[in-house]
């Protein structure tokens, strides 16, 4: 029997000054367990940036204490920005091989410290002795990739701006999203510069959030897990023959499709920390030809009624938000809700298959989880 996503719980992503990691995590878990009542045997926690900003080792066991799950088996999984899906992978494997219920909880807080400190911490998703060496924060690599992309494919800034606009239009309908307002494409290029050609409107906001997913090897619930796969990629964009092609994404996707026995999916959540990463993932997944993703986005291919799958109905990292260690768990929960037709926002009508694709940084690692409706 396949492992299922029995239930999920989400908190709205926001600057939760009055809530700490345990407050947020408990809220998400309460939401996930409110109907099932079933206690999990394993707790897999996923936290990333907070580990550096407000250090806590063995966070998973202290989280178990806050949840009243003393005696459960608890551990934390970390893979940078892909931590959430890495925790789903670990939880899935635990559920399969033990036959026990596994609760996966992603939680992270980015709003407690000044943004300059947060950027210094987030920079460490890149290689410490390489791209993270200079005091340039988190955005530089995305700026380089965007610059390369525009040059190589002759894509103009305005066309790329349809990505954040689409994300905001999706997030408006998602009660869990951090940025629930529309953004016109023409406003993107002239917003505060972050790493040229990218602006603040191309970048994820710094917010706090927690998401919980209860995995059940007895089946039932929102959706089934068809496969969870991953691959590591190069340690730097400098080590890639073609940095605009994300090797780790391609490989994790190929593995996941093959294991799931499907050729594609109808609903998709992908990692768009910056506009360029969303576009490169679309192209690496072959949902758009090279250099054509932005144009397809502008044409509405990936929103409701479009020719492609529905992508980032949540609003994506850009507008739903990106509480680093929690993001992959949000993605998994959102896709499962879509397949059960209970996602409280933009919906993929009658979708039977969905996927979440998460990466760290420029693609030092990538994770793909594929779900099917029950």
């Amino acid at each position, binding site marked *: 029997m396949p492992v299922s996503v029995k239930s999920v719980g989400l908190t709205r992503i926001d600057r939760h000054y009055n809530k700490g990691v345990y407050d947020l995590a408990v809220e998400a878990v309460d939401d996930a367990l409110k109907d099932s009542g079933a206690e999990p045997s394993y707790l897999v926690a996923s936290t990333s940036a907070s580990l550096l900003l407000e250090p806590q080792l063995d966070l998973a066991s202290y989280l178990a204490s806050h949840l009243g799950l003393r005696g459960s088996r608890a551990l934390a999984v970390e893979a940078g920005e892909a931590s959430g899906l890495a925790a789903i992978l670990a939880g899935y494997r635990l559920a399969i091989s033990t036959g026990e219920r596994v609760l996966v909880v992603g939680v992270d807080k980015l709003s407690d410290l000044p943004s300059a*400190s947060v*950027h210094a911490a987030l920079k460490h998703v890149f290689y410490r002795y390489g791209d993270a*060496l*200079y005091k*340039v924060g988190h955005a530089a*690599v995305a700026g380089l990739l965007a610059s*390369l992309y525009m040059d190589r494919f002759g894509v103009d800034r305005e066309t790329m701006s349809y990505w954040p606009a689409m994300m905001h239009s999706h997030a408006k309908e998602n009660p869990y999203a951090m940025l629930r307002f529309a953004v016109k494409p023409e406003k993107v290029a002239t917003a505060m510069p*972050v790493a*040229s050609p990218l602006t603040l409107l191309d970048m994820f906001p710094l917010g706090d959030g927690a998401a919980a997913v209860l995995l059940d090897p007895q089946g039932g619930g929102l959706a089934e897990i068809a496969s969870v796969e991953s691959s590591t990629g190069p340690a730097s*964009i400098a080590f890639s023959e073609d940095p605009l092609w994300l090797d780790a994404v391609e490989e994790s996707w190929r593995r996941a499709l093959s294991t799931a026995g499907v050729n594609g999916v109808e609903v998709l959540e992908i990692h768009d920390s910056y506009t360029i990463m969303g576009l490169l993932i679309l192209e690496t997944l072959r949902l758009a030809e090279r250099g054509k993703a932005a144009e397809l986005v502008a044409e509405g291919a990936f929103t409701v009624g479009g020719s492609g799958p529905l992508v980032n109905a949540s609003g994506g990292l850009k507008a739903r938000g990106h509480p680093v260690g929690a993001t992959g768990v949000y993605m998994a929960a959102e896709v499962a809700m879509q397949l059960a037709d209970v996602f409280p926002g933009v919906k993929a009508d009658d979708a039977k298959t969905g996927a979440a694709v998460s990466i760290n940084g420029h693609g030092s690692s990538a994770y793909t989880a594929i779900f099917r409706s029950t």
Partner: protein
Amino acid sequence: MSGVGGLRNVEAWRTRIPRYRFLGARCKSCGKLHYPPLKACPYCGSRDLEEAQLPRQGRLLAFTSVYSVEEGGREESPIFVGLIDLGVARVVAELTDVTDPSRLAAGIPVEAVFRRISEEDDEGVIVYGVKFRPVPGAGEGD
């Protein structure tokens, strides 16, 4: 510093040689060079590597002006970062001595210079290494 700092004292010392001398590694299996040196070739995975001097002259493949920078870098905002093609290898590095940002462009020649990478922090460590600058006197697109 209330957040997460840069290289610590001992690790800055331990990793100084490649940074000071701009030394990468050459893969004896596939022949490719990379910098900073890893323990395995990033292209073919071979562990059979030898030290290799990188050329100091290259061309800018792409650059970005970074505004949203971390603590300790903010006063110098924007900071310029480039992806540089050295022929035998590519590197990501900070760009320095950019007196006229409007002359930064893909294709311009750049050269490696030895510079301070981070200021003295509470631990007293200053990290030095390679940055790249536009070749003085070379016109845009030379």
